[in-house]
Protein backbone atom coordinates (compact mmCIF):
# COMPACT_ATOMS: atom_id res chain seq x y z
CA UNK A 1 0.00 0.00 0.00
CA UNK A 2 2.79 2.42 0.77
CA UNK A 3 4.12 1.62 -2.71
CA UNK A 4 0.86 2.87 -4.13
CA UNK A 5 0.99 5.96 -1.94
CA UNK A 6 4.55 6.54 -3.08
CA UNK A 7 3.57 6.24 -6.73
CA UNK A 8 0.35 8.20 -6.79
CA UNK A 9 1.37 10.69 -4.12
CA UNK A 10 4.44 11.83 -6.03
CA UNK A 11 3.57 15.17 -7.64
CA UNK A 12 6.18 14.53 -10.32
CA UNK A 13 4.03 11.66 -11.65
CA UNK A 14 1.18 13.99 -12.49
CA UNK A 15 2.76 16.34 -15.03
CA UNK A 16 5.21 16.46 -17.91
CA UNK A 17 5.81 14.01 -20.74
CA UNK A 18 6.47 11.16 -18.25
CA UNK A 19 3.44 12.02 -16.16
CA UNK A 20 0.40 9.82 -15.75
CA UNK A 21 -1.93 12.02 -17.88
CA UNK A 22 0.48 12.09 -20.81
CA UNK A 23 1.16 8.34 -20.61
CA UNK A 24 -2.53 7.58 -20.33
CA UNK A 25 -3.26 9.67 -23.41
CA UNK A 26 -0.52 7.89 -25.39
CA UNK A 27 -1.83 4.54 -24.28
CA UNK A 28 -5.35 5.41 -25.34
CA UNK A 29 -4.16 6.83 -28.64
CA UNK A 30 -2.47 3.79 -30.03
CA UNK A 31 -4.91 1.35 -28.42
CA UNK A 32 -7.79 3.17 -30.06
CA UNK A 33 -5.99 3.32 -33.41
CA UNK A 34 -5.30 -0.42 -33.38
CA UNK A 35 -8.83 -1.22 -32.20
CA UNK A 36 -10.52 0.83 -34.91
CA UNK A 37 -8.33 -0.53 -37.68
CA UNK A 38 -9.13 -4.07 -36.51
CA UNK A 39 -12.85 -3.32 -36.24
CA UNK A 40 -12.92 -1.75 -39.69
CA UNK A 41 -11.42 -4.90 -41.14
CA UNK A 42 -13.10 -7.59 -39.04
CA UNK A 43 -16.68 -6.37 -38.61
CA UNK A 44 -17.55 -6.02 -42.32
CA UNK A 45 -15.65 -9.20 -43.15
CA UNK A 46 -17.43 -11.14 -40.41
CA UNK A 47 -20.81 -9.85 -41.59
CA UNK A 48 -20.08 -10.71 -45.18
CA UNK A 49 -18.99 -14.24 -44.33
CA UNK A 50 -21.85 -14.78 -41.91
CA UNK A 51 -24.40 -13.45 -44.39
CA UNK A 52 -23.16 -15.25 -47.49
CA UNK A 53 -21.59 -18.28 -45.82
CA UNK A 54 -18.63 -18.09 -48.20
CA UNK A 55 -15.08 -18.70 -46.96
CA UNK A 56 -16.28 -19.41 -43.45
CA UNK A 57 -14.10 -22.41 -42.69
CA UNK A 58 -10.91 -20.72 -43.87
CA UNK A 59 -11.53 -17.64 -41.78
CA UNK A 60 -12.40 -19.51 -38.61
CA UNK A 61 -9.32 -21.71 -38.88
CA UNK A 62 -7.08 -18.72 -39.62
CA UNK A 63 -8.57 -16.75 -36.75
CA UNK A 64 -7.94 -19.60 -34.33
CA UNK A 65 -4.33 -19.93 -35.48
CA UNK A 66 -3.89 -16.17 -35.12
CA UNK A 67 -4.92 -16.46 -31.47
CA UNK A 68 -1.81 -18.53 -30.85
CA UNK A 69 0.55 -15.82 -32.21
CA UNK A 70 2.62 -14.44 -29.31
CA UNK A 71 2.15 -10.69 -29.40
CA UNK A 72 5.50 -9.93 -27.75
CA UNK A 73 7.39 -11.90 -30.42
CA UNK A 74 5.42 -10.30 -33.23
CA UNK A 75 6.01 -6.85 -31.76
CA UNK A 76 9.74 -7.32 -31.44
CA UNK A 77 10.03 -8.77 -34.94
CA UNK A 78 7.95 -6.06 -36.60
CA UNK A 79 9.80 -3.23 -34.88
CA UNK A 80 13.19 -4.72 -35.72
CA UNK A 81 12.15 -5.13 -39.36
CA UNK A 82 10.68 -1.63 -39.63
CA UNK A 83 13.33 0.17 -37.63
CA UNK A 84 13.16 1.28 -34.03
CA UNK A 85 11.32 4.52 -33.28
CA UNK A 86 8.39 4.30 -35.69
CA UNK A 87 4.89 4.06 -34.25
CA UNK A 88 2.86 2.55 -37.06
CA UNK A 89 4.53 -0.90 -37.09
CA UNK A 90 3.70 -1.30 -33.41
CA UNK A 91 0.06 -1.21 -34.36
CA UNK A 92 0.40 -4.31 -36.54
CA UNK A 93 0.68 -6.90 -33.73
CA UNK A 94 -2.13 -5.20 -31.85
CA UNK A 95 -4.37 -5.27 -34.92
CA UNK A 96 -3.50 -8.93 -35.47
CA UNK A 97 -4.42 -9.54 -31.84
CA UNK A 98 -7.78 -7.76 -32.10
CA UNK A 99 -9.05 -9.21 -35.36
CA UNK A 100 -9.79 -12.83 -34.33
CA UNK A 101 -12.30 -12.15 -31.53
CA UNK A 102 -14.16 -9.54 -33.58
CA UNK A 103 -14.19 -11.63 -36.72
CA UNK A 104 -15.24 -14.89 -35.10
CA UNK A 105 -17.98 -13.38 -32.94
CA UNK A 106 -19.41 -11.25 -35.73
CA UNK A 107 -19.43 -14.25 -38.04
CA UNK A 108 -21.02 -16.51 -35.42
CA UNK A 109 -23.56 -13.86 -34.52
CA UNK A 110 -24.74 -13.24 -38.05
CA UNK A 111 -24.64 -16.89 -39.03
CA UNK A 112 -26.49 -17.95 -35.89
CA UNK A 113 -29.58 -15.89 -36.67
CA UNK A 114 -32.56 -18.21 -36.83
CA UNK A 115 -33.23 -19.48 -40.36
CA UNK A 116 -36.96 -18.86 -39.87
CA UNK A 117 -36.26 -15.23 -39.09
CA UNK A 118 -34.19 -14.79 -42.23
CA UNK A 119 -36.96 -16.48 -44.20
CA UNK A 120 -39.60 -14.21 -42.74
CA UNK A 121 -37.50 -11.16 -43.59
CA UNK A 122 -37.02 -12.17 -47.21
CA UNK A 123 -40.63 -13.32 -47.40
CA UNK A 124 -41.86 -9.87 -46.47
CA UNK A 125 -39.87 -8.35 -49.29
CA UNK A 126 -36.76 -7.02 -47.56
CA UNK A 127 -33.79 -6.74 -49.91
CA UNK A 128 -30.43 -8.34 -49.11
CA UNK A 129 -29.01 -5.18 -47.58
CA UNK A 130 -32.20 -4.53 -45.60
CA UNK A 131 -32.17 -8.08 -44.29
CA UNK A 132 -28.59 -7.51 -43.10
CA UNK A 133 -29.18 -4.14 -41.47
CA UNK A 134 -32.73 -4.55 -40.18
CA UNK A 135 -32.64 -8.16 -39.10
CA UNK A 136 -29.27 -9.88 -38.96
CA UNK A 137 -27.23 -7.10 -37.35
CA UNK A 138 -29.74 -6.10 -34.64
CA UNK A 139 -30.20 -9.74 -33.67
CA UNK A 140 -26.46 -10.50 -33.82
CA UNK A 141 -25.53 -7.30 -31.99
CA UNK A 142 -24.94 -8.86 -28.55
CA UNK A 143 -22.32 -11.19 -30.03
CA UNK A 144 -20.78 -8.48 -32.21
CA UNK A 145 -20.41 -6.25 -29.14
CA UNK A 146 -18.95 -9.15 -27.19
CA UNK A 147 -16.27 -9.59 -29.87
CA UNK A 148 -15.52 -5.88 -29.88
CA UNK A 149 -15.30 -5.85 -26.11
CA UNK A 150 -12.90 -8.79 -25.92
CA UNK A 151 -10.75 -7.18 -28.61
CA UNK A 152 -10.72 -3.76 -26.93
CA UNK A 153 -9.71 -5.23 -23.59
CA UNK A 154 -6.95 -7.31 -25.11
CA UNK A 155 -5.62 -4.34 -27.04
CA UNK A 156 -5.61 -2.06 -24.01
CA UNK A 157 -3.94 -4.77 -21.90
CA UNK A 158 -1.39 -5.84 -24.45
CA UNK A 159 -0.48 -2.30 -25.47
CA UNK A 160 1.42 -2.31 -22.19
CA UNK A 161 4.22 -4.35 -23.67
CA UNK A 162 4.70 -1.80 -26.45
CA UNK A 163 6.82 0.03 -23.89
CA UNK A 164 9.34 -2.77 -24.22
CA UNK A 165 10.24 -1.64 -27.74
CA UNK A 166 10.53 1.95 -26.67
CA UNK A 167 7.02 3.22 -27.09
CA UNK A 168 5.15 5.33 -24.55
CA UNK A 169 1.93 4.46 -22.80
CA UNK A 170 1.28 3.15 -19.31
CA UNK A 171 3.58 0.21 -19.93
CA UNK A 172 6.53 2.59 -19.49
CA UNK A 173 5.98 2.67 -15.73
CA UNK A 174 6.05 -1.12 -15.54
CA UNK A 175 8.90 -1.82 -17.94
CA UNK A 176 11.09 0.99 -16.59
CA UNK A 177 10.22 0.05 -13.05
CA UNK A 178 11.24 -3.55 -13.70
CA UNK A 179 14.52 -2.41 -15.27
CA UNK A 180 15.41 -0.12 -12.38
CA UNK A 181 13.82 -2.32 -9.70
CA UNK A 182 11.53 0.56 -8.70
CA UNK A 183 8.63 -1.63 -7.61
CA UNK A 184 6.42 1.32 -6.66
CA UNK A 185 6.37 2.29 -10.33
CA UNK A 186 5.66 -1.29 -11.44
CA UNK A 187 2.70 -1.65 -9.12
CA UNK A 188 1.45 1.86 -9.82
CA UNK A 189 1.56 1.24 -13.57
CA UNK A 190 -0.13 -2.11 -13.14
CA UNK A 191 -2.96 -0.55 -11.20
CA UNK A 192 -3.41 2.12 -13.86
CA UNK A 193 -3.61 -0.41 -16.69
CA UNK A 194 -6.02 -2.56 -14.73
CA UNK A 195 -8.23 0.45 -14.06
CA UNK A 196 -8.17 1.34 -17.74
CA UNK A 197 -9.14 -2.21 -18.76
CA UNK A 198 -12.02 -2.15 -16.28
CA UNK A 199 -13.14 1.22 -17.63
CA UNK A 200 -13.22 -0.25 -21.14
CA UNK A 201 -15.23 -3.18 -19.82
CA UNK A 202 -17.66 -0.73 -18.24
CA UNK A 203 -18.03 1.33 -21.43
CA UNK A 204 -19.05 -1.80 -23.32
CA UNK A 205 -21.57 -2.78 -20.67
CA UNK A 206 -23.15 0.66 -21.13
CA UNK A 207 -23.02 0.33 -24.91
CA UNK A 208 -24.79 -3.01 -24.61
CA UNK A 209 -27.55 -1.41 -22.55
CA UNK A 210 -28.07 1.39 -25.04
CA UNK A 211 -27.65 -0.36 -28.38
CA UNK A 212 -29.11 -3.84 -27.88
CA UNK A 213 -32.88 -4.18 -28.09
CA UNK A 214 -34.43 -5.60 -24.90
CA UNK A 215 -36.21 -8.10 -27.13
CA UNK A 216 -32.87 -9.58 -28.17
CA UNK A 217 -31.01 -9.28 -24.89
CA UNK A 218 -33.58 -11.43 -23.18
CA UNK A 219 -33.29 -14.22 -25.75
CA UNK A 220 -29.59 -14.85 -25.15
Amino acid at each position, binding site marked *: MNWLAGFFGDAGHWSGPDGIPARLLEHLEFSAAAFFVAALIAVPLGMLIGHTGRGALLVVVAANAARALPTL*GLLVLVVLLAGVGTVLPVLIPLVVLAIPPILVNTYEGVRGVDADLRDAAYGMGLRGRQVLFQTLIPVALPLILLGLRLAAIQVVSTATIAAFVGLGGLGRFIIDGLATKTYADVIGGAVLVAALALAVQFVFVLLDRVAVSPGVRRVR
Partner: protein
Amino acid sequence: MSEEPLIRWDWIARNWANGSPTAISVLLENHVVTAFLPVLLGLIVAVPLGLACVRWRWLYQPTAALMNVTYSLPSLVLFSIFLSITGLTRSTVVIPLTFFALAILIPAVVDGLASVPDSVRQSAVAMGFRPARRLLLVELPVAVPVVLAGLRVATVSSISLVSVGALIGQGGLGNLFIDGWQRQFYTPIVVGIVLIVVLAVLADGLLVLAQRLLTPWSRARRTT
Protein backbone atom coordinates in the same frame (compact mmCIF):
# COMPACT_ATOMS: atom_id res chain seq x y z
CA MET B 1 21.51 -5.16 -40.78
CA SER B 2 19.55 -5.11 -43.99
CA GLU B 3 21.36 -8.21 -45.32
CA GLU B 4 20.59 -10.12 -42.15
CA PRO B 5 18.37 -13.07 -43.18
CA LEU B 6 15.21 -13.88 -41.25
CA ILE B 7 16.52 -17.30 -40.40
CA ARG B 8 20.08 -18.47 -39.80
CA TRP B 9 19.86 -22.23 -39.68
CA ASP B 10 23.38 -22.63 -38.34
CA TRP B 11 22.42 -20.58 -35.26
CA ILE B 12 19.51 -22.90 -34.62
CA ALA B 13 21.75 -25.94 -34.97
CA ARG B 14 24.30 -24.47 -32.58
CA ASN B 15 21.75 -23.45 -29.97
CA TRP B 16 19.23 -26.28 -30.06
CA ALA B 17 20.80 -28.35 -27.29
CA ASN B 18 24.15 -26.94 -26.31
CA GLY B 19 23.93 -27.68 -22.61
CA SER B 20 23.41 -24.07 -21.61
CA PRO B 21 20.27 -23.08 -19.68
CA THR B 22 19.21 -20.92 -22.64
CA ALA B 23 19.36 -23.71 -25.20
CA ILE B 24 16.23 -23.78 -27.37
CA SER B 25 15.26 -27.27 -26.24
CA VAL B 26 15.51 -26.24 -22.59
CA LEU B 27 13.37 -23.16 -23.22
CA LEU B 28 10.86 -25.28 -25.10
CA GLU B 29 10.55 -27.73 -22.24
CA ASN B 30 10.25 -24.85 -19.83
CA HIS B 31 7.57 -23.29 -21.96
CA VAL B 32 5.53 -26.48 -22.13
CA VAL B 33 5.57 -26.94 -18.37
CA THR B 34 4.83 -23.29 -17.61
CA ALA B 35 1.95 -23.29 -20.10
CA PHE B 36 0.27 -26.57 -19.15
CA LEU B 37 0.55 -26.37 -15.39
CA PRO B 38 -1.91 -23.43 -15.18
CA VAL B 39 -4.42 -25.22 -17.44
CA LEU B 40 -4.20 -28.37 -15.36
CA LEU B 41 -4.51 -26.49 -12.07
CA GLY B 42 -7.32 -24.42 -13.56
CA LEU B 43 -9.25 -27.51 -14.58
CA ILE B 44 -8.82 -29.11 -11.15
CA VAL B 45 -10.23 -26.00 -9.49
CA ALA B 46 -12.82 -25.09 -12.12
CA VAL B 47 -14.81 -28.34 -12.10
CA PRO B 48 -15.77 -28.32 -8.39
CA LEU B 49 -16.18 -24.54 -8.44
CA GLY B 50 -18.38 -24.71 -11.53
CA LEU B 51 -20.45 -27.46 -9.92
CA ALA B 52 -20.83 -25.34 -6.82
CA CYS B 53 -22.00 -22.42 -8.97
CA VAL B 54 -24.65 -24.63 -10.52
CA ARG B 55 -25.71 -26.07 -7.19
CA TRP B 56 -25.82 -22.70 -5.41
CA ARG B 57 -27.02 -20.26 -8.02
CA TRP B 58 -26.17 -17.15 -5.97
CA LEU B 59 -22.47 -18.06 -6.21
CA TYR B 60 -22.39 -17.67 -9.97
CA GLN B 61 -22.95 -13.91 -10.34
CA PRO B 62 -20.08 -12.85 -8.05
CA THR B 63 -17.78 -15.57 -9.42
CA ALA B 64 -18.53 -14.59 -13.02
CA ALA B 65 -17.94 -10.94 -12.24
CA LEU B 66 -14.63 -11.71 -10.56
CA MET B 67 -13.52 -13.86 -13.50
CA ASN B 68 -14.55 -11.12 -15.91
CA VAL B 69 -12.39 -8.63 -14.04
CA THR B 70 -9.47 -11.04 -13.94
CA TYR B 71 -9.71 -11.68 -17.64
CA SER B 72 -9.48 -7.98 -18.40
CA LEU B 73 -6.21 -7.57 -16.47
CA PRO B 74 -3.07 -7.51 -18.61
CA SER B 75 -0.85 -10.52 -18.02
CA LEU B 76 2.15 -8.28 -17.46
CA VAL B 77 0.22 -6.49 -14.73
CA LEU B 78 -0.50 -9.71 -12.86
CA PHE B 79 3.06 -10.90 -13.35
CA SER B 80 4.35 -7.64 -11.88
CA ILE B 81 2.04 -7.87 -8.91
CA PHE B 82 3.04 -11.45 -8.16
CA LEU B 83 6.67 -10.59 -8.66
CA SER B 84 6.47 -8.66 -5.42
CA ILE B 85 5.07 -11.74 -3.65
CA THR B 86 6.67 -14.81 -5.16
CA GLY B 87 9.82 -13.26 -6.59
CA LEU B 88 11.65 -14.49 -9.65
CA THR B 89 10.21 -18.00 -9.68
CA ARG B 90 8.03 -19.99 -12.01
CA SER B 91 5.06 -19.46 -9.69
CA THR B 92 5.06 -15.78 -10.61
CA VAL B 93 3.93 -16.79 -14.09
CA VAL B 94 2.00 -19.96 -13.25
CA ILE B 95 -0.32 -18.42 -10.65
CA PRO B 96 -1.56 -15.52 -12.82
CA LEU B 97 -1.97 -17.86 -15.81
CA THR B 98 -4.04 -20.16 -13.59
CA PHE B 99 -6.37 -17.25 -12.93
CA PHE B 100 -6.69 -16.64 -16.67
CA ALA B 101 -7.44 -20.32 -17.23
CA LEU B 102 -10.08 -20.19 -14.49
CA ALA B 103 -11.67 -17.17 -16.09
CA ILE B 104 -12.29 -19.28 -19.19
CA LEU B 105 -12.93 -22.67 -17.58
CA ILE B 106 -15.45 -21.83 -14.85
CA PRO B 107 -17.97 -20.31 -17.29
CA ALA B 108 -17.32 -23.27 -19.60
CA VAL B 109 -18.17 -25.77 -16.85
CA VAL B 110 -21.27 -23.81 -15.86
CA ASP B 111 -22.41 -23.39 -19.49
CA GLY B 112 -21.69 -27.06 -20.12
CA LEU B 113 -23.88 -28.16 -17.25
CA ALA B 114 -26.53 -25.66 -18.33
CA SER B 115 -26.43 -27.22 -21.80
CA VAL B 116 -27.78 -30.48 -20.40
CA PRO B 117 -31.36 -30.53 -21.71
CA ASP B 118 -33.92 -30.43 -18.95
CA SER B 119 -35.62 -33.49 -20.41
CA VAL B 120 -32.39 -35.47 -19.96
CA ARG B 121 -32.03 -34.35 -16.37
CA GLN B 122 -35.68 -35.07 -15.61
CA SER B 123 -35.63 -38.54 -17.09
CA ALA B 124 -32.49 -39.35 -15.11
CA VAL B 125 -34.29 -38.30 -11.96
CA ALA B 126 -37.32 -40.33 -12.97
CA MET B 127 -35.19 -43.43 -13.52
CA GLY B 128 -34.04 -43.18 -9.94
CA PHE B 129 -30.53 -41.74 -10.20
CA ARG B 130 -29.35 -40.19 -6.97
CA PRO B 131 -27.85 -36.69 -7.36
CA ALA B 132 -24.18 -37.77 -7.19
CA ARG B 133 -24.53 -40.59 -9.71
CA ARG B 134 -26.67 -38.44 -11.95
CA LEU B 135 -23.97 -35.79 -11.97
CA LEU B 136 -21.20 -38.25 -12.70
CA LEU B 137 -22.95 -40.50 -15.20
CA VAL B 138 -25.37 -38.18 -16.96
CA GLU B 139 -24.70 -34.49 -16.54
CA LEU B 140 -20.91 -34.32 -16.68
CA PRO B 141 -20.64 -36.45 -19.84
CA VAL B 142 -23.22 -34.30 -21.59
CA ALA B 143 -21.28 -31.20 -20.51
CA VAL B 144 -17.93 -32.49 -21.82
CA PRO B 145 -18.05 -30.92 -25.31
CA VAL B 146 -18.62 -27.42 -23.93
CA VAL B 147 -15.93 -27.85 -21.27
CA LEU B 148 -13.48 -29.12 -23.86
CA ALA B 149 -14.20 -26.12 -26.08
CA GLY B 150 -13.26 -23.91 -23.13
CA LEU B 151 -10.19 -26.03 -22.48
CA ARG B 152 -9.01 -25.46 -26.06
CA VAL B 153 -9.23 -21.69 -25.70
CA ALA B 154 -7.54 -21.78 -22.29
CA THR B 155 -4.69 -23.95 -23.56
CA VAL B 156 -3.96 -21.92 -26.68
CA SER B 157 -3.99 -18.61 -24.83
CA SER B 158 -1.87 -20.01 -22.03
CA ILE B 159 0.78 -21.17 -24.50
CA SER B 160 0.79 -17.77 -26.13
CA LEU B 161 0.81 -15.81 -22.86
CA VAL B 162 3.75 -17.58 -21.24
CA SER B 163 6.04 -15.64 -23.56
CA VAL B 164 5.11 -12.35 -21.86
CA GLY B 165 6.69 -13.82 -18.74
CA ALA B 166 10.02 -13.27 -20.46
CA LEU B 167 9.78 -9.65 -19.38
CA ILE B 168 10.27 -10.87 -15.82
CA GLY B 169 12.69 -13.59 -16.84
CA GLN B 170 10.26 -16.56 -16.74
CA GLY B 171 8.97 -16.72 -20.29
CA GLY B 172 10.13 -20.04 -21.75
CA LEU B 173 10.43 -19.48 -25.48
CA GLY B 174 9.60 -15.83 -24.87
CA ASN B 175 13.21 -15.38 -23.75
CA LEU B 176 14.17 -15.80 -27.40
CA PHE B 177 12.26 -12.60 -28.17
CA ILE B 178 14.22 -10.64 -25.56
CA ASP B 179 17.46 -12.17 -26.79
CA GLY B 180 16.68 -11.31 -30.41
CA TRP B 181 15.62 -7.80 -29.51
CA GLN B 182 18.72 -7.06 -27.49
CA ARG B 183 21.06 -8.38 -30.20
CA GLN B 184 18.97 -7.04 -33.12
CA PHE B 185 18.92 -10.59 -34.41
CA TYR B 186 15.86 -12.03 -36.21
CA THR B 187 16.51 -15.76 -35.96
CA PRO B 188 15.64 -16.33 -32.27
CA ILE B 189 12.48 -14.26 -32.64
CA VAL B 190 11.27 -16.22 -35.66
CA VAL B 191 12.15 -19.51 -33.99
CA GLY B 192 10.20 -18.47 -30.89
CA ILE B 193 7.10 -17.45 -32.81
CA VAL B 194 7.09 -20.56 -34.96
CA LEU B 195 7.61 -22.94 -32.04
CA ILE B 196 4.86 -21.29 -30.00
CA VAL B 197 2.35 -21.45 -32.85
CA VAL B 198 3.28 -25.06 -33.61
CA LEU B 199 2.93 -25.93 -29.93
CA ALA B 200 -0.50 -24.28 -29.78
CA VAL B 201 -1.76 -25.95 -32.94
CA LEU B 202 -0.48 -29.32 -31.72
CA ALA B 203 -2.14 -28.97 -28.32
CA ASP B 204 -5.37 -27.81 -29.94
CA GLY B 205 -5.31 -30.78 -32.31
CA LEU B 206 -4.78 -33.19 -29.42
CA LEU B 207 -7.75 -31.71 -27.58
CA VAL B 208 -9.94 -32.03 -30.67
CA LEU B 209 -8.87 -35.65 -30.90
CA ALA B 210 -9.62 -36.15 -27.20
CA GLN B 211 -13.07 -34.70 -27.74
CA ARG B 212 -13.77 -37.13 -30.58
CA LEU B 213 -12.69 -40.05 -28.44
CA LEU B 214 -14.45 -38.92 -25.29
CA THR B 215 -17.73 -37.89 -26.87
CA PRO B 216 -18.35 -39.96 -29.98
CA TRP B 217 -22.01 -38.92 -29.83
CA SER B 218 -21.38 -35.21 -30.19
CA ARG B 219 -20.07 -35.55 -33.72
CA ALA B 220 -23.24 -37.20 -34.90
CA ARG B 221 -25.25 -34.43 -33.33
CA ARG B 222 -23.32 -31.69 -35.06
CA THR B 223 -24.21 -32.97 -38.53
CA THR B 224 -27.94 -32.97 -38.00
